[in-house]
Every structure is written in structure tokens, then in C-alpha cells.
């Protein structure tokens, strides 16, 4: 049920075709890349939920959701109604047959870090009635010292808002790579956060499944557009001894996946607007698509962990 073999799961010729299409612009290494559209994905999420419910409970596994890049406050041509599409995404969450353990939000909650934007986002996301674990995107820390973000989401976190938590035997680590960025550079974790990460991981069994989430991809997706993290490799080297590592990011407003040894990298769709494939446009700015295609480019992800399986199953669902 992992995404890279889902064409055999669905037996769907259209799915396989989409995977192949998108591999044509994949530049480096072994890389699975998929555009937003997953036909009948809602059915797939239902299946995953049903299996989770019947086969796993408590210590045996869990399912959680990832949403990203809500950009509440953005109202330009690429999507003048970002509140409505976020509401639709939360509607999908509420309609799930089994309640996920919690949700993570991988940043860019707001477009301009305004109090009213945070309020609107909180109100809409709160409708899911799930715990939500956040990390900030660069759009959430525009105000000096990231005051508004930290007031709302910073409780119990370190530095600019990083933290870890445990759920059903999985160790979750929320990282911040959108503050104190350096001219000419990419995303940045910084020495303080890396030292904290080393400390957080010290003494943990290599058998512990690890989920790392942060806004900007930790791997070099497309540095020419700033899609990567300068010191992401240092974080990954600290994670190298673990048998199962899943890295979940947002920022690029499209689904992309790469598996490298024990590490699965995955980026989620935005609920607000799509961005172009790397290098497919003059800049990474919002991509305007036909109105009736917009919801095929927006979505959320469901992640299921089952004890005994090395890889977590990630299923992307569009709003179409």
C-alpha cells in the first residue's frame, strides 16, 4: 500500500501513466514523482482506514494525516478562495470512516502571518476535531521574531518552534527550517537545532520508527528555486542508524517521493494553489490552472504505520 507500488494496488492503467509522465522531469537519482491526481484516492484512503481499524490498534500501528500550505489570506488568480479549499480538505478529514490519531501541518498556514489569517486557519482546521502538530513555513514567520506563530503554536517547543513527540511507538520530530535564512542559501536548520536533534535521538533504539516533518524539503529537490535545506544532510546523517525514517515536507505544493535506503522522502500537496514542476516555469510562483482543474492539484496525505513493516504507507488524496 506504499505509494510507489500503488499502481499494482489499484491495477489502474491511468495511475501508471501518470507516474511515467511525471518521471520525465525527474532530474536526479532514483526518484518517484507523481502529479496531484490519484484517481479514486478517496476509496484508497477508505481501504487504508478500514485495514488500520481491523488489523492494528494501540501499540500495533497508527494512521495520521498531513495537510500543508493552506496560505490563508492568499486571494490571487491561482486560487481566490483558499479558505474554501481548506474547508473542503477538512471536510474530507471529517468524512473519514475511522478517526486518524492526529494531523500534522507542515507550514504556510497563513500567507502573510497576519493575526486574522491565523484565526481563520485555526477556526477551519479546528473543525476536524483532531490534535494538530504544526511546524512553520516561511509565510508564518514574516513578522519580526515570529511572534504570532510562537504565541499560538510555540508552547512546549524549543528555539523557533522545534519539538518531538511519541505516538504508538513512533518517534515524531517537528523541525523548523524557515528562519534565519542566509543570502544565497536554502532552508536552514542551524547548529542549535542540530545539536538538539542529536540529543533527542541519543540513546533511542535504532528499531524506533522515525517520522521527521518540516516545511521546506530536507533533500535537494531543486536548489535553483530554493527547494532544499542547506544543512538537511547533517540531520539525515544523525538519522542514518535508524531502520525506518520517513521525512514529510510541504513548500513545493506538489507530491514528490524519493526512497533512499531506509529513508522515504515525501512532499504533500497544498490545499491552496499548485506550483510548477521544477524548472517547468520561469519561477516557482503560484500556478494558475483552469478552474475545473484546480482541485485535482490540491490535496492532503494519509500516513499509516504498522508494526513490523519498515515503510509507512503514504496515500495522497486530491480535493477533486
Amino acid at each position: 500500500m506504499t505509494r510507489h507500488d500503488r499502481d499494482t494496488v489499484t491495477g489502474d492503467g491511468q495511475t501508471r501513466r501518470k507516474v511515467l509522465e511525471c518521471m520525465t522531469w525527474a532530474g536526479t537519482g532514483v526518484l518517484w514523482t507523481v502529479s496531484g491526481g490519484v484517481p479514486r484516492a478517496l476509496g484508497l484512503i477508505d481501504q487504508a482506514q478500514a485495514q488500520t481499524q481491523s488489523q492494528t490498534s494501540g501499540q500495533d500501528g497508527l494512521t495520521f494525516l498531513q495537510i500543508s500550505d493552506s496560505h490563508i489570506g492568499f486571494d490571487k488568480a491561482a486560487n481566490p478562495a483558499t479558505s474554501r479549499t481548506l474547508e473542503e480538505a477538512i471536510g474530507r478529514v471529517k468524512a473519514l470512516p475511522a478517526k486518524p490519531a492526529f494531523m500534522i501541518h507542515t507550514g504556510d498556514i497563513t500567507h502573510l502571518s497576519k493575526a486574522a489569517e491565523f484565526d481563520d486557519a485555526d477556526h477551519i482546521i479546528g473543525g476536524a476535531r483532531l490534535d494538530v502538530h504544526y511546524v512553520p513555513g516561511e509565510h508564518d514567520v514574516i513578522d519580526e521574531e515570529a511572534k504570532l506563530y510562537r504565541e499560538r503554536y510555540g508552547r512546549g517547543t524549543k528555539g523557533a518552534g522545534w519539538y518531538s513527540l511519541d505516538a504508538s511507538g513512533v518517534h515524531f520530530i517537528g523541525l523548523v527550517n524557515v528562519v534565519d535564512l542566509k543570502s544565497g542559501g536554502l532552508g536552514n536548520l542551524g547548529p542549535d537545532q542540530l545539536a538538539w536533534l542529536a540529543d533527542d535521538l541519543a540513546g533511542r533504539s535504532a528499531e524506533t520508527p522515525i517520522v521527521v516533518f518540516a516545511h521546506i524539503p530536507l533533500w535537494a529537490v531543486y536548489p535553483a528555486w530554493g527547494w532544499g535545506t542547506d544543512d538537511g544532510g547533517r540531520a539525515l546523517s544523525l538519522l542514518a542508524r535508524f531502520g525506518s525514517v520517513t521525512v514529510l515536507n510541504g513548500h513545493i505544493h506538489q507530491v514528490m517521493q524519493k526512497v533512499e535506503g531506509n529513508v522515504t522522502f515525501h512532499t504533500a500537496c497544498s490545499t491552496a494553489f499548485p506550483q510548477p514542476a521544477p524548472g517547468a516555469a520561469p519561477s516557482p510562483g503560484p500556478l494558475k490552472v483552469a478552474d475545473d482543474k484546480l482541485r485535482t492539484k490540491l490535496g492532503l496525505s494519509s500516513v499509516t504505520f504498522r508494526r513490523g513493516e519498515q515503510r509507512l504507507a503514504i496515500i495522497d488524496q486530491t480535493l477533486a
Partner: protein
Amino acid sequence: MTSRTEVSKSVLRRFGVAVLLGLALAAPAARGETSAPAAAKVSIDNFTFSPDRLTVAPGTTVTWTNADDIPHTVVATGKAFRSKALDTDDSFAFTFTTPGTFDYFCSLHPHMHATIVVEAGRS
């Protein structure tokens, strides 16, 4: 100007150049009288500062305007100036009084960076 719609584009181009040359020749006398402060513009478009290297005389006010659908900032690497986030069509202006080389970048998208050179004897 109202006649522009009536002429073909190629005619307009040649005509336009002639008008501009005429203005340029007529300008110096008037300019000597008023000595307006020097001004220059940098546009932010497609995640790019343009021009990416601009040379101005001391006293020049440079205005950055964001044409993107995404906010950007204008931040001097050496901390000489720092804008707030510029949303679409927002501007930021800074007057350069001292000669020097000023590297700056967007603190939200740090792969965007450019330079202002302030040099006496330039206009």
C-alpha cells in the same frame, strides 16, 4: 499621445525614439534649475531582482516594487536596510548616502539576491 492608436507599431517605434531624443536634448536646461533628487527602480518579478546589479550616485533613492503574487523582502546582508514583507504591488524605498557595495537578498527566498553599488560621479 492620443494619436498613438492611429499609427502602426513600427511607425510608432521610430516616432517614439524621435520624441525621446527631442526630450533628452531639451531636458538639461530645465534639469539645472530644479535638481530633483536622483531616483532608481528595482523590480521584483518571477522571484528575481532586476536589475540584479545597479550602480547609483550617493543620495539616490532606490525603490523596489514587488510584481509577484508571493511576498518578498529586501534585506541588506550587512543590515544597512530591511523592508517589511512586500505583498503584490507593495514598494520599499531606501536612500543611499554613502558610497559602497550593498548586497541584499529576500529573507523568505534567500536564493534571490542582488547588489546596489553606490559610487560618486555616477548618475
